[in-house]
């Protein structure tokens, strides 16, 4: 027998009416023990700007006040003039930038021609990056171009910035690479 939902409602309605007549005379409503506490209730709230596209949506970051300070939730900031609380799927997944078991927690290094990645220390990695950047930059630095105009640039280094940087981090980053003389500075989110 095929029963449409509408028919279903009629049938259950009828049986309910039958029950009402028979009435048992005492309240059987179950005691609902759903402690509906927001997971963000005791969290610290900080505002930020979504790191992905150029729209620049505002978001609220809820972080734990209990010691570890980890991110509990990130959602759209209803007071933000651009997105008024909304976020697309990328923005809605912002908390995964920090709370994700697949995240790398240490710098990894693959030597030239090597097939494997190895864990290295931050100290070693930063020193090595600084050394190599300095070497390439010094070797390729142009003070003047062919027309004898002062350019102070290097065209041997290109920066493709990470989408995972927020507005302020991006500013600091581009200020640093421009100080080195880079002219090819691009941001992944715009590509």
């Amino acid at each position, binding site marked *: 027998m*095929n029963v449409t*939902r509408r*028919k279903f409602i009629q049938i259950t309605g009828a049986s309910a009416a039958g029950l009402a007549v028979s009435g048992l005379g005492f309240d059987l409503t179950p005691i609902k023990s759903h402690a*509906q506490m927001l997971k963000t209730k005791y969290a610290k709230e900080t505002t930020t700007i979504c790191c992905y596209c150029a729209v620049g949506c505002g978001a609220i970051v809820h972080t734990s006040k209990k010691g570890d300070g980890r991110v509990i*939730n990130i959602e759209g900031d209803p007071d933000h003039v651009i997105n008024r*609380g909304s976020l*697309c*799927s990328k*923005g809605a997944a912002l908390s995964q930038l920090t709370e994700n078991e697949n995240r790398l927690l240490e710098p990894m290094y693959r030597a030239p021609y090597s097939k494997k990645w190895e864990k290295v220390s931050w100290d070693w990695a930063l020193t090595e990056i600084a050394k190599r950047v300095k070497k390439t930059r010094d070797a390729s630095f142009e003070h003047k171009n062919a027309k004898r105009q002062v350019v102070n640039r290097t065209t041997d280094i290109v920066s493709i910035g990470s989408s995972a940087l927020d507005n302020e981090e991006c500013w600091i980053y581009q200020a640093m690479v421009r100080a080195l003389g880079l002219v090819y500075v691009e941001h992944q989110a715009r590509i």
Partner: protein
Amino acid sequence: MSKSFLIDTTLCTACRGCQVACKQWHDLPAEKTINRGTFENPADLSFDTYKLVRMREEVINGKLNWLFFPEQCRHCIEAPCLETAGDPGAIYRDDKTGAIIFTANTKRLNAAEIIESCPYNIPRKGPDGTLAKCDMCIDRVENGLLPACVQTCPTGAMNFGDRDEMLALAKKRLAVAKKKFPKAMLIDPDDVNVIYLVAYEPELYCANAMASNAVFDITRQVALGRMIRPLTNIASRLL
């Protein structure tokens, strides 16, 4: 006054913000999937996926249309799952919001029977037999926030509020949609708290967009279950 959603699919761009926001708020893990030649992903609702944007490519009047349908529990006004379970410790209606809530006690229900009873094919069984589905973000709603999916929606496709407000909005949006899409309609607005506005026939959007004839043979059992429910209630409170 119960709460309702109005999901205006004519405004949906399938950005899937709702789908991700739902996972994010509920701390649900991602699922490993394969490329099936569609952006619709994962392939189906699951124990870990309460909300899924359905995407269908349909040729209508000689023109290709990409139809989007953010599928979720409808929070029925007379919920067949609740009636079938007859166990308020496992499935109950939250009186303030009208949300149909599945608890951890759904483990003691016959999962197949509950899933079968849903005219929209929504509940999904977990590895330990517990059932899961959309909970209307009842924790957020009770604290004055919008459900995560509604809060995040950038286009205004997802709306949430008091039922009469949503019905009024539905009427207004339908009138607007009708001008462009003569076949536009609301899906089961009198029976559910999650009302969809679609531009074309609901069956084009997803198999269970509209309460269908897909419910077989549960009637007698459900009717009986409803008659004896007070007894099962007593039993479940004694146990």
